[in-house]
């Protein structure tokens, strides 16, 4: 019985320190690698690429904040779009036809899609593998939508929320396991 108490107690203290390490990891701030911000009027049925990143990895996070006057559809797609010279100007080689084709034929490449109407919108995404990511705006209405956006790419040690959740779950279990052993050790020391 005493041995089991020791084994569980030491397992508990180990869980506590692992939780502490994870909490420490989660509070280390992320570093902003790059960012794009702008204010654009989107014509009806117009598509705009707001952000494009290749080789996004699990230590990185894409954060998006948008303020819209009008109606806007926001997509995060698992694609890489090429920046090319078209009609005398540099632009992404991605238009409404490409978007519609992708939405119909490759729905697996849609990480998220949301509609925003006259308001603010914020969302972030951390991948679980190495992937491409592109933020696309689309105005589905018949009126001009005015979009103010801020997309940032951040790099950290680990996804903070995930790590913090694990730490919050593991620490109480560790404490419950460790208390009997710690009390026993304290009593023995006091007895000596």
């Amino acid at each position: 019985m005493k041995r089991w108490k020791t084994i569980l107690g030491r397992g508990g203290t180990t869980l506590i320190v692992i939780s502490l390490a994870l909490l420490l990891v989660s509070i280390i701030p992320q570093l902003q690698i790059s960012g794009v911000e702008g204010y654009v009027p989107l014509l009806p049925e117009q598509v705009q690429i707001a952000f494009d990143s290749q080789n996004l990895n699990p230590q990185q996070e894409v954060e998006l904040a948008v303020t819209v006057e009008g109606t806007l559809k926001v997509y995060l797609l698992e694609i890489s779009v090429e920046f090319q010279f078209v009609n005398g100007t540099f632009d992404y080689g991605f238009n409404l036809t490409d978007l519609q084709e992708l939405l119909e034929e490759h729905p697996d490449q849609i990480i998220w899609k949301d509609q925003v109407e006259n308001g603010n919108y914020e969302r972030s995404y951390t991948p679980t593998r190495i992937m491409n990511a592109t933020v696309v705006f689309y105005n589905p209405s018949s009126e001009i939508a005015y979009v103010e956006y801020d997309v940032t790419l951040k790099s950290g040690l680990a996804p903070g929320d995930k790590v913090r959740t694990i730490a919050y779950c593991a620490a109480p279990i560790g404490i419950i396991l460790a208390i009997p052993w710690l009390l026993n050790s304290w009593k023995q020391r006091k007895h000596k």
Partner: protein
Amino acid sequence: MKDMGKGKPFLEVLASAIHEDYRFPFLELFAFLYALGTFVLANFTVSVYSQATTNEAIAYTVTTSLISGSLIVFILLILKNVAYGLGSDLEKGIIQSYFSYPLRRRGILTAKLLSALGVSLLLFLGIQISALYILAPDIVLPQFGTVLLTYAANLSYPLLISAIMLLMTLILRRGGIALVVGIILYFAMSIISGIAFVVALATGSPLALQIVSVIAPSYALQYHYGGLSGVSEVFSVTWAPTLTETLLYTGASYVIVASLFVLGYIYFSRRLNL
């Protein structure tokens, strides 16, 4: 009934060894360092841009990125347990007291090694694989074989060091010199591999790298996933071992490690006069 009779003394010795090796708060301290080192020293950005082209290569580079930081903590723990722990047990007469148990000598050594290496390995792999799963589940799960091979290849050399330290500690009956030799061997490998790389470039033959890979198969795995790409064309060295060859190098290294541990067992069972 006979097995149960032998099992209980074994568990007694194992419990005693674990108690000695992981006195409070050593286990907790190393668990903290493992967890912190795994996340703080991992850098997916560099590894992903450097060489990864296939899913296997991505899984390999991500796993290697995670291992590199914690491996030094693992080495420290086995240096402490095998050289210092076993050495002081021999000096203090704790091992001699185990001989009074109704247990064969090899059982006593197995219990000591399970405590010194088994628990350390369990802690290391448990934290590492959990961290990989937290960070990149979609890389780890589909390529779990590559992840395991990467761990096997990277752990072979530390286990070789521990086998050498075990032999030295048993022969010298103290751990001080074995501890120093262990530290030297750990750092010597990076120097030896550097020399082997230069020799390979100078001679245009990968023989030196192949010899190093027999004791440290992580190098064969590195070259399998394109470690020499770019340099090979300039210096006309081409060594890209196939997966089968890499598995052979890993297998050969573990045969060497196992042979040294068997030598340790033979010495402990038959030659060690205490």
